[in-house]
């Protein structure tokens, strides 16, 4: 589970207090006196309005399930020591890499002594099993130089696929209690290092070795895997033009019939908000706010990424074809989108320096997008603000954004 979360969050356009079009007196509840409390507004939700209606949203934190954690390689190796494997069977190369990383000569001598240095019998490469004090005494720059060079290049190696943390540290995802001691949080932050303008963390085995029990180890992994998403609802009031709303969310017939459900909301006293889960097409609705599970994606040769997600927004299950060639699908199925943007339009993020596409997501409404930020199974499908998504990818360099729409022949 490697996490890459950006700092910035959604911008509050204006608050709900300006939107009380439906008076309290209208909130008549059937079935008194055992009626539920009517849906109430809070003054902390953000609101955006436009041809899509009025959306209100609030931040939510997602953690993978207990099942997911139990199947993760980090949990499976929780009792194993930290191993630094080097791409060499020559001890001189190991000495050189440690020195280049900036480790002092005394520590290098200790680590390359018989106590910690050995050869992997399978690959023949040198390995070091560093003691805790060696890891703890390293400075951030040393980690940043050494860790990216450590083998093997497998997802089970936390140095090859580190956890990506918010740039402010793991603490920025602690709006709800993590369930682990603050010392563990501090340790994670202390052992983090910069990578591609984000913060990476690889010393998971050291941190887990200091946990009291497996329950705390699982909590640590879940905390590290936290991802931010948004809970979104559409306010539907009698004063709204329901046919216009249905037209926007119906996406020219590509989505389900929206009007009857909007009429139900308007016709029900005490209800004025419809969760966006009912407005998304079937495939994103299936994916929303979930982590893809390894066992569930055995069927595909590759795990889902932003491309297969965005390309299948109006489709059924992501066709295998979408895993084949991004450029082909882009050229064959999409054309430049005209303004205003429509529900489901594709937003493409490219690096300015080489025109390489580094991310795509789908326009929902306003500045909200449906996105899967990366191929990792630790990245859930979420609703996010475009600002947060672009901030994440701007770390790789200057970007430019373009908008695309399915060609008419593919809109059927």
């Amino acid at each position, binding site marked *: 589970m490697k996490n890459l979360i950006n700092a910035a969050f959604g911008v509050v356009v204006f608050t709900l207090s300006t939107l009380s079009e439906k008076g309290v007196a209208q909130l008549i*509840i*059937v*079935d008194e006196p*055992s*009626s*539920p*409390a*009517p*849906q*109430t507004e*809070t003054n*902390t*939700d953000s609101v955006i309005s436009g041809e899509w209606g009025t959306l209100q949203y*609030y*931040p*939510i*934190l*997602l*953690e*993978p*399930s*207990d*099942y*997911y954690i139990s199947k993760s390689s980090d949990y499976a190796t929780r009792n194993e020591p930290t191993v630094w494997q080097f791409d060499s069977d020559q001890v001189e190369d190991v000495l050189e890499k440690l020195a280049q990383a900036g480790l002092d000569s005394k520590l290098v001598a200790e680590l390359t002594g018989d106590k910690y240095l050995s050869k992997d019998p399978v690959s023949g490469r040198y390995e070091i099993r560093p003691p805790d004090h060696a890891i703890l005494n390293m400075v951030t720059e040393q980690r940043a130089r050494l860790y990216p060079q450590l083998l093997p290049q497998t997802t089970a190696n936390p140095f090859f696929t580190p956890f990506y943390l918010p740039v402010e540290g793991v603490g920025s995802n602690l*709006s*709800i*209690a993590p369930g682990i001691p603050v010392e563990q949080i501090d340790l994670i932050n202390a052992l983090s290092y910069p990578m591609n303008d984000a913060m990476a963390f690889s010393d998971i085995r050291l941190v887990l070795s200091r946990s009291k029990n497996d329950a705390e180890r699982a909590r640590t992994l*879940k905390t590290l895997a*936290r991802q931010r998403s948004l*809970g979104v609802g559409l306010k539907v009031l009698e004063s709204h033009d329901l046919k216009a709303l249905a037209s926007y969310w119906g996406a020219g*017939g590509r989505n*389900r*019939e929206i*009007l*009857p*459900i909007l*009429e*139900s909301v308007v*016709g*029900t*006293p*005490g*209800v004025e*908000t*419809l*969760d966006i*889960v*009912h407005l998304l097409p*079937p*495939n994103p*609705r*299936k994916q*929303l*706010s*979930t*982590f893809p*599970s390894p066992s*569930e994606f055995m*069927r595909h040769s590759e795990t889902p990424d932003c491309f297969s997600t965005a390309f299948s927004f109006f489709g*059924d299950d992501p066709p295998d074809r979408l895993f084949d060639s991004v450029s082909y699908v882009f050229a064959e199925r999409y054309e430049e989108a005209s303004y205003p943007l429509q529900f489901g339009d594709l937003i493409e993020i490219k690096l300015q320096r080489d025109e390489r596409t580094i991310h795509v997501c789908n326009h929902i409404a306003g500045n909200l997008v449906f996105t899967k930020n990366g191929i990792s199974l630790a990245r859930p499908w979420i609703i996010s603000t475009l600002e947060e998504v672009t901030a994440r990818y701007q770390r790789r360099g200057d970007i430019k954004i373009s908008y695309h729409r399915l060609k008419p022949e593919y809109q059927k």
Partner: protein
Amino acid sequence: MKFPIIFLALLVLLFASGQTQELHRNSNGSGTGQFGLYKGSPGPWGNLQYFYTYLEAPSRIMDLINTPSRETKWHFPGKSIEELRAFLSDAGVSTEDVEIIFKNSLPFHEDKESILYPPADQVMALSPKSREMVYRELRRWPANRFYYTPFMIESGSVKERFEGTTFHPAIIDLVEKLSYRIGSGNAFSDPQLVIGQFNDDVAERAFLKAMTRTRSLILMLQIDSKTDFEGLKSYWSKGYKGKDIVPFFESATLNTNNRIIDVAHLLPPTARKYLYTFPTFSMGVEGAYPDSFWASLNFFNYWPDDELTDPDKAAQYIQNNYKPVAEPYAFGDLLVFLEPGTDRPIHSCVYIADNIVYTKNGRSLRSPFLLMKLEDLLIFHTATASPEVKVWRREVR
């Protein structure tokens, strides 16, 4: 729904060990004919509330539906002409009308099946009680298309069903006159008599589209910062792997004292994907469109197994993955309805909470995946007596 003998035998064997439930029937919110926000009963599922909504088949499906003949046609497999005459009399049809039906409809009898073509006047003239009795018999046989799967008016209110449409009040009155009771709801099976009132195909289509409106309910969970989230997790997370719902709830209730979470967020991905939708054409590419067994047995499967439309494989799947359970029933439990007297499995659905189930009522393209109150579903599947219900729980692996 046809079930091969092997499947029947296997299911009878399976259900011999299953638990039979006496389901709690709570009339709260059923058949009121009103829109409203209803409160669920307290339970381990938390504080639920719900309201009703209508689902309408999309045009892509309506374009495929064969417009029915304007003639009424009644199939009576296994009944001779003489038996039919006695049956109609017993149902309260006047001797005169029985004679007219037989005289004008040239009853056709072949291979132990009788077919009647009753004139419109005689169908319209049926008393409510006679209509209930005759249609209950017709409902037994798939050949009677709209009697076998009638248009259900769960609220009991025809006017509510047509709310927001532009049909002439006389049309709505005619539907009301031809509707008949099934349990606490109403059903309608005579579109052929109504479309006879229209002058063009467009109006006929619009009427049939309106009749596909199916009542479902939007189910929501009310939470606040004092809610027992771990308790909710133990109820709602059975077999669910997509996310941990505790941080989801905790973060949603930050800075607010009342958050409404749509229960769709708590369903497994596949169930959430199809909820409130009609089947797509692609779902039938492999040979069969999803029915109730496909919907309920794939509830927890991230990738639906299309072979579960095969009755033999469905039975084997239950045997391999489920175990019979007793009350209290829990989220994700499989409920199988058995026809009284024959133990023939006629339907299955998935228990969600508070006697609300996830179901797809039949293989038809005009049958959506939806949430219903269990009592309404039982009524829908009641011909002469309420079906027996066996309950199974998926074994966590």
